[in-house]
């Protein structure tokens, strides 16, 4: 290979005539660039702020930054949709600093999903403040804040940068120590809004309701400023999260360079089983081509292990050069100083290729790169765009290569470029009405301030729930108020990262003297993922579960290096408890409501990686059945005539597998957040039924959305299964089949049968 520097367009020209690549690149798509749209500085912009911006070489604002400034000044809460590198932080820094410069008593809270992000933003903000030459105090407040300066942050911090967990357990329950903050709170900034989804987002929605309650007590009415990556429902999410009407800023004024997207599918090496060459190897080859062409690139891989594999492979290129650091790995958990070194190397060009886990996705400033390779679909469109946004900042031409892995979703994406490039990203769902989550925060709210007998909490009427808490003996009713009356500190019992508080704690025994807790998992998932002998993946590292103490909810694991994974069977019984909504169509019904399910883990298989996915062992799981009350949507239908029970059963199992894989296309979630259970004879109506349920007690709003989506969901699934090149089922479509049977054909027939029935409904 010639080691000669080329531009992206030169390189692409070569690739057009490369036979091997031509076959594997299924689609070339070019998005034309767009020049910047500017707006002048607002007339009333404080001179010190103008000065600071000018020091940074900024003479005018992008239109979205100006729009943000004007909305904030007008007292409107708003959400700005901001692509990577569009200068989103000015959307909140400018109005907040302006307000503080006008009124030294004014205060603001910045909320970031993680501690690390708050740290990064603090440095940026402090630099801006320094350039303004004004004295504005901004601090991070989290678990790492030294006790010595906490007092100062509480009393004097103009801007407090924190995370929801700290707000929940470290600030709100002690609000009397923060009087000057709450009395003068003008702005609440929520950065990375799209990360507040699912269980975490539902918890945070309550933390914000509690925060607003406290603000009301102290007489402040803060304006919310949110920034979000592109999702389908930013306004809905922002309004549900903050319980406040939001304006929306959708048009970014930042310039965009020309972007070329390549959709690359590794070649099939085993036709019958639909096995393709490993995406990691393909990515490594592509990265090598970019490296030798002198193109600065970033490679995304999903796990640490894959990052290491690709780095090792690429380091071969620099083996003969001493002290060459031009290829670097990057993953979460790096110290800020290490990150700065990498960021600097990228800027001055000593680093040419950086291989990263998704850690880089969030807010790390690595400057401009020319190309980006994604190893597999990162799970949702917003993340994909954030990764793609790493290439071609400003007006430069950029190259983005998407390399598909063999999963159903990956294969779908590589075959449907418009899915990624079109304009329909997923919805981010939260469900603050989850009773478990709501009750947890109702307790915290009662702890923080008493409820009057005519109070509501957020948009909820909660008097009856308070009466229940009184019965339970944690609140006490006096003539006109409900008071917290227990020695407990409820925020400590509640983790924002899980719905049910009865989690299984995962304990790493690898180093005998240093056993440590490495994670938690909800009970329901633990049955199939943490049973004894299971291989548990944690940040890309394999662990084997040695002992699962179900009574104590503890799983003891040890690091291992094996060439198989485990897959457990879960037998699920579904009971419909309440049907909230339903609609009929020819030969069937679609419903949504509450279900009670009894799940029991039965057996597990050990399956060898890659190749034919050989089953190399199995075992029985001995765990008691677990009950869960959650929400579900279900589709019942009349069995197709002349099908045997076995045929129908096989088809339903395969279809369920495929449907499950496609839910994340519509809703921003992991395929493990929901489950699809086929029942050939449902207990409540004796009909064949597919249940889609939320895998969190009380539900998290995902299956509720599926209720509206059945038609499209089945369409997409059918399309994909029929176009999958395998002969009789593979991991990319209906799952590996035990023998070469006719299942795939039956799955296709069943899906088109159901599809036509649903279409009938539409026509009527």
């Amino acid at each position, binding site marked *: 290979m010639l080691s000669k520097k080329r531009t992206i367009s030169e390189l692409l020209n070569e690739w057009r005539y490369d036979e091997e690549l031509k076959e594997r690149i299924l689609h070339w798509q070019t998005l034309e660039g767009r020049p910047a749209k500017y707006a002048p500085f607002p007339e009333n912009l404080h001179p010190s702020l103008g000065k600071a911006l000018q020091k940074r070489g900024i003479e005018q604002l992008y239109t979205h930054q100006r729009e943000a400034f004007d909305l904030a000044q007008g007292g409107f809460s708003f959400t700005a949709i901001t692509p990577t590198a569009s200068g989103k932080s000015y959307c909140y820094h400018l109005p907040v600093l302006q307000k503080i410069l006008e009124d030294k008593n004014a205060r603001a809270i910045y909320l970031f999903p993680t501690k690390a992000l708050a740290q990064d933003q603090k440095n940026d903000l402090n630099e801006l403040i320094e350039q303004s030459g004004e004295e504005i105090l901004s601090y991070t407040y989290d678990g790492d804040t030294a006790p010595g300066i906490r007092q100062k942050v509480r009393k004097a911090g103009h801007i407090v940068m924190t995370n929801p967990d700290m707000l929940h357990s470290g600030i709100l*329950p002690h609000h009397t120590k923060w009087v000057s903050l709450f009395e003068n709170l003008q702005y609440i900034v929520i950065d990375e809004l799209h990360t507040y989804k699912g269980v975490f987002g539902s918890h945070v929605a309550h933390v914000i309701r509690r925060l607003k309650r406290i603000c009301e007590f102290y007489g402040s009415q803060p304006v919310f400023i949110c920034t979000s990556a592109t999702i389908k429902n930013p306004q809905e999410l922002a309004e549900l999260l903050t319980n406040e009407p939001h304006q929306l800023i959708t048009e970014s004024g930042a310039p965009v360079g020309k972007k070329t997207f390549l959709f690359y599918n590794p070649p099939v090496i085993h036709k019958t089983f639909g096995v393709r060459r490993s995406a990691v190897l393909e990515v490594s080859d592509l990265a090598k081509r970019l490296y030798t062409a002198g193109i600065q690139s970033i490679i995304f891989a999903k796990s640490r292990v894959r990052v290491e594999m690709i780095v090792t492979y690429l380091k071969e290129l620099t083996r003969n050069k001493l002290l060459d650091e031009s290829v670097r790995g990057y993953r979460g958990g790096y110290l800020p100083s290490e990150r700065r070194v990498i960021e600097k190397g990228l800027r001055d060009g000593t680093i040419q290729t950086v291989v990263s886990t998704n850690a880089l996705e969030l807010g790390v400033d690595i400057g401009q790169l020319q190309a980006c390779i994604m190893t597999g679909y990162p799970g949702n469109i917003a993340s994909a765009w954030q990764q793609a946004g790493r290439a071609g900042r400003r007006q430069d031409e950029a190259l983005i290569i998407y390399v598909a892995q063999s999963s159903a979703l990956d294969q779908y994406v590589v075959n449907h470029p418009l899915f990624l490039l079109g304009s329909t990203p997923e919805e981010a769902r939260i469900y603050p*009405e989850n*009773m*478990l989550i709501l009750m947890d925060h109702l307790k915290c709210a009662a702890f923080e301030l008493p409820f009057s007998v005519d109070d509501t909490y957020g948009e909820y*009427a909660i008097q009856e729930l308070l009466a229940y808490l009184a019965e339970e003996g944690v609140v*006490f009713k006096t003539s*006109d108020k409900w008071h917290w009356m*227990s020695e407990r500190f409820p925020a400590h019992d509640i983790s924002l990262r899980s719905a049910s508080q009865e989690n299984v704690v995962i304990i790493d025994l690898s180093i005998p003297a240093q056993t440590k807790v490495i994670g938690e998992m909800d009970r329901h998932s633990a049955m199939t993922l943490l049973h004894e002998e299971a291989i548990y993946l944690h940040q890309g590292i394999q662990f084997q579960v040695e002992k699962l103490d179900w009574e104590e909810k503890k799983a003891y694991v040890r690091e291992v290096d094996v060439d198989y994974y485990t897959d457990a069977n879960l037998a699920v019984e579904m009971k419909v408890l309440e049907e909230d909504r339903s609609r009929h169509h020819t030969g069937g019904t679609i419903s949504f409501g509450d279900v009670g399910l009894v799940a029991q883990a039965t057996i597990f298989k050990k399956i060898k990686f890659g190749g034919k996915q050989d089953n190399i062992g199995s075992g029985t799981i001995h765990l008691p059945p677990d009950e869960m009350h959650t929400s579900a949507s279900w589709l019942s239908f009349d069995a197709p005539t002349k099908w045997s029970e076995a045929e129908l059963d096989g088809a339903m199992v395969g279809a369920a597998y495929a449907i499950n894989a496609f839910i994340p296309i519509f809703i921003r979630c992991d395929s493990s957040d929901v489950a699809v259970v086929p029942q050939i004879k449902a207990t409540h109506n004796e009909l064949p039924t597919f249940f889609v349920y939320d895998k969190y*007690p009380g539900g998290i709003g995902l299956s509720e959305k599926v209720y509206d989506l059945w038609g499209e969901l089945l369409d997409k699934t059918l399309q994909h299964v029929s176009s999958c090149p395998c002969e009789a089922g593979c991991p990319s479509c209906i799952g590996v089949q035990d023998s070469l049977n006719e299942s795939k054909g039956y799955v296709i027939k069943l899906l088109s049968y159901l599809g036509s029935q649903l279409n009938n409904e539409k026509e009527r």
Partner: protein
Amino acid sequence: MSYENKILQMKKMLGKKSTTQPKAEQPAYQKPANPSYTEQWEKAGLTVVENDFGIVFKRQVNYSFSYQHGHYQLQSFFDALRKWQDADFNHPYALDGNESVLFFDTETTGLKGVGTHIFLLGFLEITKEAFVLTQYILADPAHEAALLFESKLWQKTATIITYNGKSFDWPQLETRWTLHKKTLPKLRAQRQIDLLHSSKRLWKNDMERLKLKAVEEEKLGFSRVGDIPGYLAPIIYLDAVKSGIPDALMKVLLHNEWDLLSLITLYSHSTHLLFEENKEESAKTFTNIGKWYGDLKESTQSVKVLERVTTQFDELAAGDAQYYLALQHKKNKRYSEAIDAFVASLHFVKPRTKLHVLEQLAILYEHQLKDYQQALYYTQEGIQLIQNNEQWSMEQKQKWVISWEKRWHRLGNKK
């Protein structure tokens, strides 16, 4: 049914408003209704006090000056006051004869956070005739403003003497006050004397636990009979409010009363110690006292106390005292006395201190006495001590050895 399922069943009880209407203007403070058990609590011996904000229950007990609590009579406090007036040095625990004093202790429903209520404010004050205990008991959480107002802490000026009050009782009181800032006059800032802090200074290395109860038993000669443990107080109050039955609550009042009485005698005892009146204490305690004076820059007082330790106790017990004494001598530029004291301490202090002693000796010999032979000797001793120690980490040892070897090389050149 599991907790989870029970909660989920309640979904039907959750009402939802489509829009949130702004709440009507809050009316001015409304006096809450009296709790149903008011009479019952009065029968148990509590008095009802009514003010603009509601009611509060009150209990008052007078103690004569000669009342005996453990080893001390309460009037021992007056001796302590006299001592401070006659003292020729300053000390943060000194009281001026004219300042009014308030011994203060609370009982709460929890350990921290806004959801923790103070349900009992206990005060002990001194009048011309007696020591007067006053306890204010929260009638129910709705009557909190009444409780706080009645405490008069917005009005009076007094030095507040507590046990751990600086970081617990007082901030907790400030929290409660903040919640009523719209209705109540401001809480006054007061001078604070926290006897937990002084107990730590006095009995560090001597007592393992510094719970007030332990101090009472070991130092004040008072042991409680029939006391309820403090951690039960929250549950007892909650139960009293829910059931209306005050019997167990009265025991919490007694518990609080004992705490307050002990505060008086603890103050007396501590003062006696600071003036070396009590000879029964250990060498450790007096060494602590000497060190404390040293830290307060009361060198004369520090030297006096430490020297007495070195004459009254054996070499082993006086090791630390010699060490602190040496530091005082050095500070006062009395180098040969400093060297003598350092040498006397050398074999009776912990390794970490010993290393510091050797360093000090090396420094004094090198820079003050210019005796490089001796300085070199102590430097070698220091290096040896580091190398032979098995408790310190390799990393730490390496760092120390490097700096010690620098000194060693320098001294080698000077020789």
